């Protein structure tokens, strides 16, 4: 399941890369792809910030932005979670994903969309809020027949 992924090495590919050692920050741009096991993030720009040694991968925070940036991970066998937003902030240590800016999450036909979505990967829990200033509310769409029927499993 999701936790297995986090033992895997993280690989990052992009067209060009920029290292800023003092600020302990790496900026990667143009069709950026991050992989870690079944986790896959695509974005236009990625900023990796770390309070520890960047190269050792401690406490890194990935800030991916794109139009939109996308996220995908296999939660259980065959159960895929997909998401997209203009900014995806992923904290590898707390394993919390924050999607900001017409964020959307899709999971076996069920869908959540809002201005801001927080995804607690370990607990498989998602919270979504409406920003005070924006009119756009949280929308969730479920397909009862499909869900209720198919997944006896877990």
């Amino acid at each position: 399941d999701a936790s297995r992924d986090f033992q895997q090495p993280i690989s990052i590919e992009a067209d060009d890369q920029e290292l800023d050692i003092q600020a302990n920050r790496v900026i990667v741009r143009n069709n950026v792809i991050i992989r870690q096991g079944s986790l896959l993030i695509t974005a236009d720009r990625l900023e990796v910030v770390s309070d520890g040694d960047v190269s050792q991968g401690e406490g890194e925070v990935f800030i991916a932005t794109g139009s939109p940036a996308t996220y995908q991970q296999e939660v259980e066998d065959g159960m895929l979670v997909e998401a997209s937003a203009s900014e995806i902030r992923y904290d590898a240590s707390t394993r919390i994903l924050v999607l900001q800016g017409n964020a959307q999450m899709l999971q076996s036909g069920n869908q959540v969309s809002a201005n801001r979505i927080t995804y607690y990967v370990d607990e498989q829990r998602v919270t979504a809020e409406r920003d005070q200033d924006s009119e756009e509310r949280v929308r969730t769409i479920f397909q009862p027949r499909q869900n209720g029927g198919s997944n006896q499993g877990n």
Partner: protein
Amino acid sequence: QEPPIGLAAQCIAPPDWYSSDYSAADIAPALSLAVPALSIQADHAEVLWQQQTSYSGNVTLNYQQQSLRTERAIYDQQTGRFEASGGIVYQDPQVAARGESVITDTLADTAELNQLDYYLRGTAARGSADRLFIAANEDSARQLSFQQASFTTCPGNTPVWEIRARQIQMNEDEGWGSARGAQIRLFDVPVVYIPRFSFPVTDERKSGLLYPTVRSSGRNGIEIEVPYYFNLAPNYDATIAPRLMTERGVMGVGEVRYLDTEQAGQVNLEYLHNDSSRQDNSARYFWRLEHEAQLNQNWSTYIDASQVSDVNYINDFGSAFVNRADSHLYRRGQANYVNARWQAQVQVEDFQLLGPYQNPFRTIPRLNTQYATETPRRQGWVFDWDSELTRFERQDGSPEQATRIHGEPGITYMMRRPGWEWSAESRLLMTHYEQELLEGDLLTRRSITRTLPEFRLHGQLNLERPFEFAGTQGIQTLQPQAQFLYTPYRDQREIGVFDSVPLQDDYNGLFRKRRFSGLDRIADAHQVTLGATSSLFNQSAEELLRLSLGQIFYFSDSQTQLFDDSTQVEDNTSELAAELDFRISSRWFFNSSVQYDNQLNTMQKSRSALEYRKDENNLIQLNFRQLRGLTGTETDVEQVGALGAWQVSPQWSVAGHWYRDLRNSATLDANFGVQYESCCWAVRVSAYRRIDRNFEGIQAGLPLSPAEFDTGISLQFVIAGLSADRSGLAGMLQQGIFGYRRPFYLSH
């Protein structure tokens, strides 16, 4: 006929929390999902995939045309249940409700609301309930069942009437609702407790049994009729309406209807075990069966039979199928065969007499066939052949019976042009009787054959000219007609009279070939009929006036008679027959028809009517009828009548009719009613005087004594407001003997 806008509009006043901008169509199409999608929106949501999602802040749900608004809710993906509490507003195409809490099961397609007020969209019906359970049945029509509910169609906080019931059930596509453990409250005071009853919810009116109604009449006392409707299957329903009458007792009234693609029918039963208003406390009943079936392309069958317990039944209880004044019940069973050129019919006919009349013949069976070649377009020959085989039998068990076989080949040559047409027709009528009739009290058997030819020559001109009258341009048409008829005399006095009677000789009768109905008397004729019809049409081709005039000129007397020589024709012209239909203006109509005997200078028969008609609910008509020698008897009829209905205001309307027999200076039938109609109830108070005839135990053939009259006040209370339309007035006009219409079956 549009309902009066004022009344209907103010009645349908949805409650304040109801928002009509309900629309369930915003989700599914956008996502074009095959499976019905459940969309929930809120200010805050917390999703545990595959488990529960909790919402807070202005939560709205949309699922399969159901929509919900609440403040806090939880959706469980496993069970598919959505639970909300702390105040909800629910809407679907049929019902809108505001309640305490709701549980929607998206898998089973059910919803359960608690502590709610509800409102049925598009009607004035509303109420409250402890619990409402909504389920979709197999063909996805929603079934509503309310527990501890109230139901009314009256606006305002203390409704004029309200039904409180342990349970009320309504089905979306069924026009009826049913209540169990019901209590009717007037002005919040419980009035009557009814264990089970049903009431119409939409405006598909079932004929006859409608609402629980309360009526009063002189003869039956206070009448309460409470219908209970069973929808047994999509094409099969039953209605039971016990009818309590204080003067007579409780009568069971039942009706079963069935409708399939090939056949349809109806069974009615009315049964009163003992009629307390009669000394012998006898049982009174009426049953009726009507069944029509289409066997295949050519064959169809039809049965219409009914029976009453005694001759006064219809007079005492009325009926939706028989007029109070009818003299008999006509019963028959028949099979019809139809194809391009052939038509055949085999039937059995029988009568139940509702008065002291001569016992008729029944036909067991009657087989007749008709064949005719194609009618040529412009000119040419037409050959036709009618035949009939009938066996007659007296009904009162008397030994009289007869078999008649009849063949009638005919050949016609016709020519048709726009301006004129003529036809020459000759027929040969061959009839053979094997009859056993009582002559005195001696049963004599006779075998008689009658053959006679018939010649007919008919011509017509179609003339026209432009006409101008009071500023309107138009066309006047004139269609003169002439007919020569020759049938030689045959002495038919030995032939029994089974289905022959003198036909009425009004304008339409002038150009008939026969003076008697049926086949037992073919009158000799040597005559010419002259007639003409003229019509005035305005520019939009509407017929404003039509006048017809005609007379028969006899070259020799017609000696054929029915029983005695009173039905012979000795004078040399018939009565002058005329008919006038005149549309004076868009609202004023006049029509009249007269038969004037210019030998005796007497008016044999005349009728005329003047009508002012604004629409179906606002009309006044005056009519006069005068008749000398009804059906060959000496009785004369002279009757004047007035009827009218007026919608004084959206609530108040009056209607009435009054028929007076001038010859005996007696009012035959009169009714004057006032109707007050508000949103949810209507009351009709009418004073009436109607004939109350009692033919029981009177010998046949004796002259009938004048009937008594039943006068009184009738009050009718009707629950209304369940449907938009207001048909009250037309109903009032139909009451009484003269208004009532009795529908007949047309076999093809």
